[in-house]
């Protein structure tokens, strides 16, 4: 460049001289011409490659021109030639006072200014040189286009690419064929991050210099920077064939493969690169990163460790090492690396997030949640960080945090696989949480999850369960079948399919699925559903057995207890018709009653009614009264009342009859008779008779003879009865009425009333007829009557006193 500028300037100096603007002294003119001749000779020698000879000629030319300057100090062209020769001989400092003299005489002379600027720049006085040269460029770039190259080179070298760019661009406008300058401009663009412009410049250079390897490399690098990795790979692979060990090509090729995710292909190039450049941080770092992506954790840690030794203050290296430890299940090592990374970048969101994940792995959920929150706050636009926060919040049961974080993550990047998977997890958890309260809301959340993971078997099974809760049997079945298609053994799906069949009335089909679900994963819900299938299929005993067995596993489960009560009731109710004594159904009713409070009111009313019937048949009046009262109460609470639950055609007085029955059993005959009223229906008449008989007996024993008589007379109205007649005579006897008739009357009743013979004895005794009395008591004994023991004792003592047997033939 220096030579070109000198030649160019020498040519330009000619016309100025020829224009005749100044007439020098003769001696000066001669010395000037001699100097010019010698300078041209030097140029010719240099053009032939004889640099030393050229320098000798330039030195002679300088002497001649110094003579010219002495002869005529006002001769301006001499100053110009002195600037050129000093520059050529690299005697920049010596040139400067001469050129300054010249500029005092002709300050507007662009030639002088140009060479003054050039020599200043070459003398290391850039600060003085650049304004001078910029002035030249501004006033005469067309005449001195090289000044643009000089400035461009200067700025480029000073890494002031922004100022180099316009200088070079202006020059190339003036000289589009200047390929080297274009190559420099391409580099300038590259340095400025204008990769498209750089690529265009390098492609232009390559057109002119097709074999230039540097241009090819630069094109590859520009393509890489533009993200056109496939093209970059093609260009750089080609370049590498030409220069297999060119480091920049090896590195950029590896990077291109890395960027393409073709880590396995990147690794050999990185390996070759670091072989040549073992101290390259980038080489080690990206090599380790590629190995990390390939899951080759040990060599990755080795390369990253090397990188860390080269540059300990780059946090990304320790971060990656921490991540490798984290996924390798080494939380302590992970934490150590990540903490190291955090020192270098305390606010780095990814490092914070990774530390949060370490805490999460350790079960320190509060710490994890805090770190993931910090990470998401520092980089709110990073979908993965938001998703990670959501996962940690979910783990910490903080759905109120998980939900918005996940929504944000999905908003930021719906395509990221991690985000989608996290979304499915969190949305499914939210659906599960909402299911008990609002199945429809849960269903909507689940649909969102399924939009992210449409074939996930668990989500499909969940959908089936929610469809069941929404009474959508076909929907449940379809979802369950889809789930089972994806995962044939998923118990929840099998459960849902069974229940869907059950809802459709296919109890037998449902049973198979529910049994399979129960076997794979026993749950209360499945046990209840299977029991329902068994009941619907008429296998109540099996349902009872199933729920009894299940209750051993889940003794405190309320739904199970309720189910148990219902199946026991169902079995008792089915057997009650044939259980005259109430003993056979007692066990089932007892179990059912244990959970009666948890039953729906109508079912509770039915159960209490059945319990009352059983108790009445067992003769347990107190229990029967309680159950009957509760049955009536619950029937009323259920709405229509207990009578509405009875069979069609049941007598209106049925419940009164049952109450009377219970009253009778607890010996409240007065209440029983009150309930029974007029004793009209056949059963009621029988119960009235029973109550009156007992009431009479009780009153008699209490000494209320009038009351006893009244009860017996009422009983007699319900039908003739020898016992009633017998007892009316007993009362009369006690009242000392009609004793004379009693003996004969009781004698007549002996065949019908077992106690009658005893009373015959009493009556005979009262008459003083000890023998007749003795015989009557003996008849009581012989008949095995209810008073046989007592009668026997009396007869015995009478016999010992009166010796009837001795007198009896």
């Amino acid at each position, binding site marked *: 460049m220096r030579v070109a500028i000198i030649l160019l300037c020498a040519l330009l100096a000619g016309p100025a001289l020829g224009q005749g603007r100044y007439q020098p002294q003769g001696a000066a003119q001669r010395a000037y011409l001699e100097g010019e001749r010698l300078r041209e000779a030097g140029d010719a020698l240099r053009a032939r490659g004889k640099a030393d000879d050229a320098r000798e000629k330039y030195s002679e030319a300088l002497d001649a021109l110094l003579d010219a300057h002495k002869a005529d100090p006002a001769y301006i062209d001499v100053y110009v030639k002195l600037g050129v020769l000093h520059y050529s001989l690299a005697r920049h400092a010596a040139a400067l006072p001469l050129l300054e003299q010249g500029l005092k005489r002709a300050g507007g002379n662009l030639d002088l200014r140009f060479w003054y600027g050039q020599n200043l720049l070459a003398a290391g006085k850039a600060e003085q040189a650049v304004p001078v040269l910029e002035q030249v460029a501004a006033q005469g770039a067309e005449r001195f286009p090289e000044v643009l190259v000089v400035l461009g080179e200067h700025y480029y070298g000073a890494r002031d690419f922004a100022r180099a760019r316009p200088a070079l661009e202006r020059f190339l406008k003036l000289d589009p064929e200047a390929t080297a300058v274009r190559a420099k401009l391409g580099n300038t663009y590259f340095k400025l991050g204008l990769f498209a412009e750089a690529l265009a410049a390098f492609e232009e250079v390559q057109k002119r210099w097709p074999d230039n390897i540097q241009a090819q490399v630069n094109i590859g690098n520009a393509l890489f920077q533009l993200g056109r990795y496939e093209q970059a790979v093609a260009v750089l692979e080609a370049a590498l064939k030409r220069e297999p060990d060119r480091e920049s090509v090896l590195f950029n090729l590896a990077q291109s493969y890395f960027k393409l995710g073709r880590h396995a292909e990147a690794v050999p190039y990185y390996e070759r690169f670091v072989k040549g450049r073992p101290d390259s941080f980038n080489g080690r770092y990206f090599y380790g990163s590629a190995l990390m992506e390939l899951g080759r954790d040990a060599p990755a840690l080795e390369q990253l460790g090397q990188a860390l030794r080269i540059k300990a203050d780059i946090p990304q290296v320790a971060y990656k090492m921490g991540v490798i430890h984290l996924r390798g299940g080494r939380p302590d090592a992970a934490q150590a690396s990540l903490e190291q990374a955090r020192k270098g970048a305390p606010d780095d969101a990814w490092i914070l997030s990774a530390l949060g994940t370490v805490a999460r792995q350790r079960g320190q959920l509060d710490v994890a949640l805090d770190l993931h929150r910090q990470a998401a706050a520092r980089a709110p636009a990073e979908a993965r960080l938001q998703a990670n926060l959501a996962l940690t919040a979910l783990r910490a049961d903080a759905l109120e945090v998980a939900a918005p974080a996940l929504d944000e993550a999905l908003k930021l990047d719906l395509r990221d696989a991690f985000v989608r998977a996290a979304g499915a997890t969190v949305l499914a958890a939210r659906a599960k949480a909402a*299911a008990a309260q609002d199945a429809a809301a849960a269903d909507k959340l689940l649909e969102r999850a399924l939009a992210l993971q449409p074939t996930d078997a668990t989500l499909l099974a969940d959908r089936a369960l929610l469809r069941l809760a929404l009474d959508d049997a076909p929907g449940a079945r379809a979802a369950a079948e889809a789930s089972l298609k994806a995962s044939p053994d998923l118990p929840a799906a099998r459960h849902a399919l069974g229940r869907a069949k059950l809802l459709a009335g296919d109890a037998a089909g449902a049973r198979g699925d529910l049994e399979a679900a129960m076997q794979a994963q026993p749950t209360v819900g499945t046990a209840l559903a299977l029991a329902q299938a068994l*009941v619907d299929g008429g296998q109540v005993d099996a349902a009872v057995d199933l729920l009894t067995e299940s209750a051993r596993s889940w003794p405190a489960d309320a739904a199970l207890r309720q189910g148990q009560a219902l*199946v026991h*009731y169902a079995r008792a109710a089915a057997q009650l018709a044939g259980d005259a004594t109430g003993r056979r159904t007692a066990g089932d009713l007892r179990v059912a009653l244990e959970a009666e409070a948890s039953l729906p009111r109508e079912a509770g009313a039915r159960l209490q009614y*059945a319990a009352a019937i059983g108790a009445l048949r067992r003769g347990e009046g107190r229990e029967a009264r309680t159950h009957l009262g509760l049955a009536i109460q619950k029937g009323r609470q259920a709405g229509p009342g207990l009578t509405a639950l009875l069979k069609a055609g049941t007598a209106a007085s049925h419940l009164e009859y049952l109450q009377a029955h219970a009253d009778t059993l607890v010996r409240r005959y007065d209440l029983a008779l009150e309930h029974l009223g007029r004793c009209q229906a056949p059963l009621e008449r029988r119960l009235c008779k029973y109550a009156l008989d007992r009431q009479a007996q009780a009153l008699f024993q209490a000494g209320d003879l009038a009351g006893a008589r009244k009860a017996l007379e009422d009983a007699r109205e319900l039908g003739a009865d020898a016992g009633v007649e017998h007892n009316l005579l007993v009362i009369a006897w006690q009242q000392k009425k009609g004793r004379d008739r009693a003996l004969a009357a009781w004698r007549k009743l002996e065949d019908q009333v077992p106690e009658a013979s005893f009373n015959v004895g009493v009556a005979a005794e009262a008459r003083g007829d000890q023998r007749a009395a003795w015989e009557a008591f003996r008849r009581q004994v012989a008949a095995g009557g209810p008073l046989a023991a007592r009668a026997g004792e009396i007869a015995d*003592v009478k016999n010992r*006193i009166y010796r009837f047997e001795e007198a009896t033939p």
Partner: protein
Amino acid sequence: MRALQIAAWLLAAGLLTAAPVAAQPEEAAAPAGYVVGVYAPRVYFPNSLARTSYANDVAARLTASTGISFSGRGFATRGDFDRQIQEGQVHFAVVEAQLQAERGFTALAQGTTGGATSRAMVLVTSEGTGPGIGALKGRTLALVAVGGRDKSFVMNHLLQGQVPGDWFKTTTARDVQSALGLVKLGKADAAFTFTGNTDGLAVSFQSRPAPLPVFVQTAKELDADVVSKVRQAITGVSARNSVFDGFGALDGAALGRLKRDLDGGPRAPGNEPVFAAARSALPPVPDQMERGPVVLPTPDPAPLMGIPAPPADAF
């Protein structure tokens, strides 16, 4: 000859010496420690000496068993017995079960014979009396004086209320040997005695077993330890007399029955008619409930729902 025999018998029975003996308690020695009295007029002792000897025998056995000093004292009359109890001179006693029932002494044990706590009594009659109680209507019964309800004992307990209260005339005897003497002397027509003590008289009637005498605490304020030791020791004591041969546990049922028979005086003969038990059967209990559908609880979907596993950590 017969007069001599009768005199000898009376002498043996103590009748002839009853008055002077009754004036003094039958003591074998000065009282030492606790006193066990014997007042059981229905138990046949041939004489006062035999009764005292029996009392000493019981006392000696108690002393041997408990290590506490006891002495025995026989009583021929209730007056002496009551007086000495009142004076605190008698601490324990063997008394008729009737007397225990009447007086409410604390019973500690009951006389036993062959292991039984009761023994039948027989109504013995003098020669020439017809068979059975029917033949004794209006005749004289020698009634052993035990307590205040001697007639109730006979009419209610022994004759079980089957004989009218006015069936017999009665005369009182101090003890059974006196009553039997009266029958033999013709001064009475009949008397009750425990089986085995009929002394040759004809048996007209045998009662159901009657409770044997009981061993009681007669002094109220005694050392509880002493009472406890006596209670424990007396049930193992074997001391034979004409009616029983030792002591055993109380027969509460028999004593209760005796007490009921003693209450209220002699009952009028005869029984009361009984009220025939009600025999009508309870009618059936119809089950009129319409069977509703069995709807088991619908499982809550939430516990069955799953959550897909979270994705592997990504960075």
